[in-house]
């Protein structure tokens, strides 16, 4: 039973990593990355490393995602004045 | 004259011999200079630049050879080689990463096998 859960988590890690690369929408990709980090922290817990799991959940899943989302917001709104602020202008 | 002598295992080289050589050269240069004409005067027609008989441009920029023109013949002769080299430096990050990965592959083939 434990083994099946373990394998399922590993599989889900790979799938979420794949989606993090595959999604064209950047927000979805970042959320996928966050899910991957959470699953990896779960995997760390299974591999008997609870302290690393806490660090990964806090830093990898929490802080890193926050930074990514801040960067995404900044990339949508901050441009030199005069160049337009429309996010659909680029693709 | 052991001081300043470097033995390379195949020969030797002495720094002070060279310094003396240069000092000697400098003395000869000074001697030649002292035999020059003494009737040179600053601020007269002797100061004027001779520019092939043409009027001399006021700004030095028009006189100077720009850096991109130096070794023109060299780069022209090797232009095919240079084209390849310059096109290697594309400025695209993905290409650089690709070269890195290919290098890892090549070196691992060499060392692992």
């Amino acid at each position, binding site marked *: 039973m434990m083994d099946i859960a373990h394998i399922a988590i590993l599989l889900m890690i790979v799938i979420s990593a794949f989606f993090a690369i595959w999604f064209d929408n950047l927000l979805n990709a970042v959320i996928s990355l966050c899910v991957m980090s959470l699953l990896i922290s779960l995997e760390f817990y299974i591999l008997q490393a609870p302290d690393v799991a806490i660090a990964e959940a806090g830093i990898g899943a929490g802080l890193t995602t926050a930074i990514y989302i801040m960067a995404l917001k900044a990339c949508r709104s901050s441009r030199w004045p005069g160049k337009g602020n429309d996010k659909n202008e680029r693709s | 004259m052991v001081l300043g002598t470097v033995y*390379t295992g195949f*020969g030797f080289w002495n720094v002070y011999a060279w310094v003396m050589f240069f000092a000697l050269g400098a003395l000869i240069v000074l001697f030649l200079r002292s035999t020059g004409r003494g009737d040179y005067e600053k601020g007269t027609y002797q100061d004027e630049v001779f520019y092939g008989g043409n009027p001399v441009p006021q700004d*030095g920029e028009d006189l100077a050879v720009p850096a991109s023109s130096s*070794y023109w013949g060299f*780069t022209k002769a090797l232009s095919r080689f*240079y084209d390849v080299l310059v096109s290697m430096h594309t400025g695209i990050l993905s290409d*650089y990463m690709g070269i*890195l990965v290919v290098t890892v592959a090549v070196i691992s083939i060499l*060392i692992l096998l």
Partner: protein
Amino acid sequence: MSWQVHLPALVVSVPLLGAFISIAMVKPRLRNLWFATILVATTILAFLMWRYVAINGTLVYVMGGERWNLTLPSGMTLPIRIIMEVDAFGAFMALAGSIATLASGLFSVRFLDRVNDGNKFVALFFLLFAGMLGLEVTGDFFNFFVFLEIASVASFGLIAFWRDRPEAIEASFKYAVLSTFVALIFLIGVGILYGVYGTLNMAAIAKNMQVGFLEKLALVLFIVSLAMKSGAVPLHMWEPDAYGQAPAGVSCFLVVVGQASLYGMFRIAFSVYGQAFEGNVLAWVIIVLGLLSMFIGVIMAVIQKEAKRLMAYHCISQTGYMLMGIGLGLLALSSSQAMSEYGFTAMKGGIFHIINNAMYKGLLFLTAGSLFYATGTTNLNKLGGLARKMPYTTFMFAVAAAAIAGLPPFNGFVSKLLIYESSFVVHPFLAVVAMVTSILTLASFVKVFQSGFLGPSRDDLNNVREVPLSMVVGMMVLCVMIISLSMMPNWVLANLIEPAARDLVNQASYIQAVMGSGL
């Protein structure tokens, strides 16, 4: 026990202290004073460390304990503590690096007046300094990785310091992605070695080294990652961008940081793997990397128009000389006859070239920086006739250019001579490439000299004047170093270079210093 045994820890912690305190400095004058004080102090510490190592042999420092290992009740000993190990080669690298850093720091003091956030510059500068010295004193693989990352992160910040210039950001971004990837590769290599040997201590791994598939894989990862960090062709693409866009003082500094990565590569190739790695493949890989770096670096330099970018390409080609010189030493490692015939000479050449390159390449970047300070551009098409207006800079440039091109009375010639003569024994082709590179180096610096300093003066550069005194002093430090290295080749070879080369070759003494006869 004298206080001097703590030197390896001090050379890392003093710049770190400087970094963290300099953020809090409010007044620019106070900050500049602090900057200069910590720089001089660290350089003195590095010098004392070099002297201590020269007198007492390899210095081992254990962080937070007397002994590096732990003996279990069952009688088994485990290498557990963080150790720092400085042999003559490491001490030599630290000394050369800190002299160049001192010069670039003194040069940067006036540069700081022009920017608003000078505190951040100082903090990053010291962080990079600590990272560089850490790379050179550590005896532990994971610490090596940590210092590599400290140095990388600080250098991303410094390269992008002119953040209103798009090119600087671009260069920093490219370097950041490549360098992060490469550091992770290095970490994987460290993990592999840990998985096999169960320890991170370089000497302990070296002692038990049995080269199999996994060790070779780790070696590939180490070599590639450190070759990229030191900018060897074909992994050099970031280097002209980064060195060309960084502030000039920082470019001068990045040269020695690149050499610290080179130090790591040689440390791993000689001290960790050493004779356990059979065959000549590794040596030839390093030599071919060196040949490619030399030739392609210089051939690209000839066609550059931007002074700093041109010098950055030269930096690649000079790295090639070091790789080739020390690679030849590695080639001769397994046979003592080949070692005495050409290997040791080549290594002396390579190691001498490391300090030479730190000095004259640093000086060249500083002269480019003072050109930029005085005229606002380093584009050679827009310069001309500066020799009369900037006599000191011109003199320094001429000295450095003659030294880097290997013109006889200067130090560049000595190291190149040693490399030529020893590489000729292995294969004449190597020596020919080295000489052609030297000629092209001269050619491209003649181009810089001709279009930057000679020629008629231009109207748009009429009110250019010589750079301020502290910048001249910074350049003077390196210029004096170049001239004294040139005038005393015997002393330098006997006291600086030979002990370093001997310690690098002698793997047994490296292991012995840490492990004693135990384990």
